[in-house]
C-alpha cells in the first residue's frame, strides 16, 4: 500500500519528536537529572518505517532498547518515556523496576523485554506460534542489533519461525557497532541479511536511513507473513550516531571523522529533504513542527519531574501472579 501524504508527514513527525526527546535525554543526563540514557539517534527511520507497516492494536511488537522512535510511533507518550528515565512510579514499562528504554506497553501489544540481548527473539517466534495456533491473521515484528545476532538465541528463534512458517518479521537494526565491536568481529558474512539463507527464509537489506524505503520493505514482509507466507529477516543498515550509552565514551574506538561523515546521512535530514522536495512539507511547517516538538518535550520533562517516585516497599511486588481458584 503506497503511503498517503498524511501518513508520510505523520511518520516524519514521529521521527522528529523522538529525536528531540532523545536529545533531551542526553541533556538531562549532562545536567545530572537522570542517571542513564541509551539512545536511538540515527535509527529513527528504520524504527518508524518498520512499525508503520503494522496494524496497530492488532499486530505485535517485540522491541529492543534503542526503539524509542518505535515506541513513540506506537503510542508511548514523551512524558511516559521521561518518567522512565527518571524512575518515576507511573512509567508504564515496569513501574520503574527496569532501567529506561526497557520497553513494554501492554495495551499496544508491545511485549516487555529485558537487557540480555536476543532473549526477546524467541518470544517473537512464540507469539507467532500462538497466532498460528489460533488461526489469526496477526503479525509479530521484532528487532535486535546486528551484534546480538551472534547469540545462538537469535538463530534458534529465526530457525523455529522458518520451520513453522510463522508470521514474524525479524528486523536487524545494523548500526555497525556493538558498543565498541564492529560488524566484522561479529560475523563472517558481509550483511546480517545473508544469515537468512542459512536458515531457509527470505532475507533483505534495506537502507535504514530512508524511512519510506524501510516502510516498503517491511510492509511487504508483514503482508507476506499475514498471508501465511512465513517469516522474513530484514536488515536495516544505518549508523549509531551517539556513543553506545551515557556510560560510553566512543572516542576510544572510532574517529570523530567517521562519526561526522555519517551525520551527513542523518535520517531526519534525509526525510526532511525528501518531504520538502516532494512538496509535502514547507520549510515553515517544518519550523512549526520543531517548535511543537520542543514544546511537547518541555512538557514531558515538566510532567515527569513532578511525578512521584515509587515507594520503597513497592519493590516487594508483584513477584507472582495470583492463582485463581475454581
Amino acid at each position, binding site marked *: 500500500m503506497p503511503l498517503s501524504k498524511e501518513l508520510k508527514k505523520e511518520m516524519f513527525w514521529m521521527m522528529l519528536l523522538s529525536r528531540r526527546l532523545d536529545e533531551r535525554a542526553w541533556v538531562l543526563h549532562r545536567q545530572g537529572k537522570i542517571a542513564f540514557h541509551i539512545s536511538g539517534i540515527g535509527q529513527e527511520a528504520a524504527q518508524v518505517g518498520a512499525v508503520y507497516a503494522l496494524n496497530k492494536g492488532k499486530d505485535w511488537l517485540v522491541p529492543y532498547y534503542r526503539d524509542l522512535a518505535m515506541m513513540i510511533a506506537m503510542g508511548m507518550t514523551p512524558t511516559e518515556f521521561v518518567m522512565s528515565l527518571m524512575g518515576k512510579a507511573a512509567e508504564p514499562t515496569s513501574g520503574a523496576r527496569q532501567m529506561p528504554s526497557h520497553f513494554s506497553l501492554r495495551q499496544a501489544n508491545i511485549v516487555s523485554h529485558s537487557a540480555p540481548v536476543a532473549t526477546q527473539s*524467541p518470544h517473537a517466534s512464540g*507469539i507467532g*506460534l*500462538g497466532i498460528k495456533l489460533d488461526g489469526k491473521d496477526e503479525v509479530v515484528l521484532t528487532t535486535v542489533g546486528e551484534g546480538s545476532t551472534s547469540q545462538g538465541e537469535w538463530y534458534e*528463534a529465526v530457525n523455529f519461525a522458518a520451520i513453522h512458517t510463522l508470521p514474524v518479521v525479524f528486523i536487524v537494526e545494523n548500526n555497525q557497532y556493538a558498543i565498541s565491536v564492529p560488524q566484522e568481529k561479529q560475523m563472517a558474512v558481509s550483511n546480517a541479511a545473508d544469515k537468512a539463507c542459512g536458515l531457509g527464509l527470505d532475507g533483505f537489506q534495506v537502507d535504514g536511513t530512508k524511512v519510506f524505503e524501510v516502510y516498503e520493505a517491511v510492509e511487504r514482509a508483514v503482508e507476506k507473513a499475514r498471508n501465511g507466507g512465513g517469516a522474513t529477516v530484514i536488515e536495516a543498515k544505518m549508523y549509531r550516531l551517539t556513543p553506545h550509552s551515557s556510560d560510553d565514551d566512543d572516542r576510544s574506538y572510532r574517529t570523530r571523522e567517521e562519526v561526522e561523515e555519517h551525520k551527513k546521512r542523518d535520517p531526519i535530514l534525509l526525510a526532511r529533504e525528501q518531504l520538502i522536495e516532494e512538496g509535502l512539507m514547507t520549510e515553515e511547517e517544518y519550523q512549526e513542527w520543531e517548535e511543537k516538538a520542543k514544546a511537547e518535550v518541555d512538557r514531558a520533562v515538566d510532567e515527569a519531574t513532578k511525578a512521584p517516585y515509587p515507594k520503597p516497599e513497592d519493590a516487594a511486588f508483584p*513477584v507472582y501472579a495470583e492463582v485463581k481458584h475454581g
Partner: protein
Amino acid sequence: MAEITLVEAIRQAMDEELAHDENVFIIGEDVGVRGGVFRATVGLFDKYGGDRVIDSPLAELTIVGVGVGAALYGKRPICEIQFADFIYPAFNQIVSEAAKMYYRSNGEWSVPMVIRAPYGGGIGGGLYHSQSVEAFFTHVPGLKVVIPSNPYDAKGLLKSAVRDPNPVMFFEPKKGYRLIKGDVPDDEEYTVPIGPAKVARKGSDLSLFAYGMMHHYALKAAQMVADEGIDVEVIDLRTLYPVDRETILSSIRKTSKALIVHEDNLTGGYGAEIAATIAEWSFMDLDAPVKRLGGPDVPAVPFSHPMQEWFMVNTDKIADAIRELASF
C-alpha cells in the same frame, strides 16, 4: 480409584488439561509420534494432533523461549525437557525471562507455563542422564518448583501447574516413573495445590524432610527404624519453592530433630535452605544438630554400577542417618 504408575499419572494430567483448555499445548523433543522418550506423552499426538503436541527442534532454549512467547500471547505451554541434565541451554530463558517477566512489567505480562523434566539417578544414566537440578531454581523468585513423589500428587500438582499463571518447574523422579505406583481417582477430577508440603507419616522423635524419589526411600527407612523404636515424622516437601516454612517448623516444634535428604550434591543443595530455615526459626526447639544427607560433592552420578551405588542415597543410608541423629 485405580492403581497407576507415576508416569501414567503425569500423562493423564496432560491429557485432561489438553482437553480442559484449548490453549494448553505440549512442546518438546520427541513428544509427538514417539510419545516422549519416557512415554509421558504417549497417545496425545494421535488424540490432539500436531498443533497441540509439537515436536520441537533439538534445542531447549527454543522450547522454553518459544514457550515464553506463546504464554505471553495467551497460550499455556507445557514444555518438556527430555532430561533435566539438558535444561541448561534454556537457563537464560528460564531465569532471565520466565521468572522475571511478571515483576519487571509490574504485573502487565505474565508467563503461565510449565517446564517438565525428568531428573535423578540410579538408572545407569551416568553424568548426563542422572542429574538433580532443583537447587538452581529454588533460588529464583518468580518461579515455582514442584517435585511430586507419587502418582496422586503428580497428577494433581501437574494439573495445578498447568493452570497456574506463573512459570512452574516440574521435576519428575524418573527412576520412579514405573517403579512408583499408587491410587488415583478415576471417576472425579481433582487438583493438588502448589505450595503446601505434606506430613506423609506422623512421628515424634525426628523430622525427616525429603521429596521425589528420596521421599519414597524416606518412608521405607522410617518403616525400617520403626521396629527399632524410632518414631520418624516424614514430610514430603512437594513444593520446594516457595518454601512451606510453616509445615517444616511445626514439625520441628514437635520432634526437635531434623534430617534433610536429597540425592543432589550436598553442598549448596536444596537441603541447605531447609537446614538454614530451621537453624534460624526453630533454633530454640532443636535438641540436636540439623543433619543433611545428600549426594557427594562430585560433578554428577557416575555410570559404572559400583560407582553409581556409591553416589546414590538409598534407604539404608537414610536409615543409618536416622539412627545416628536419633541417638544424639
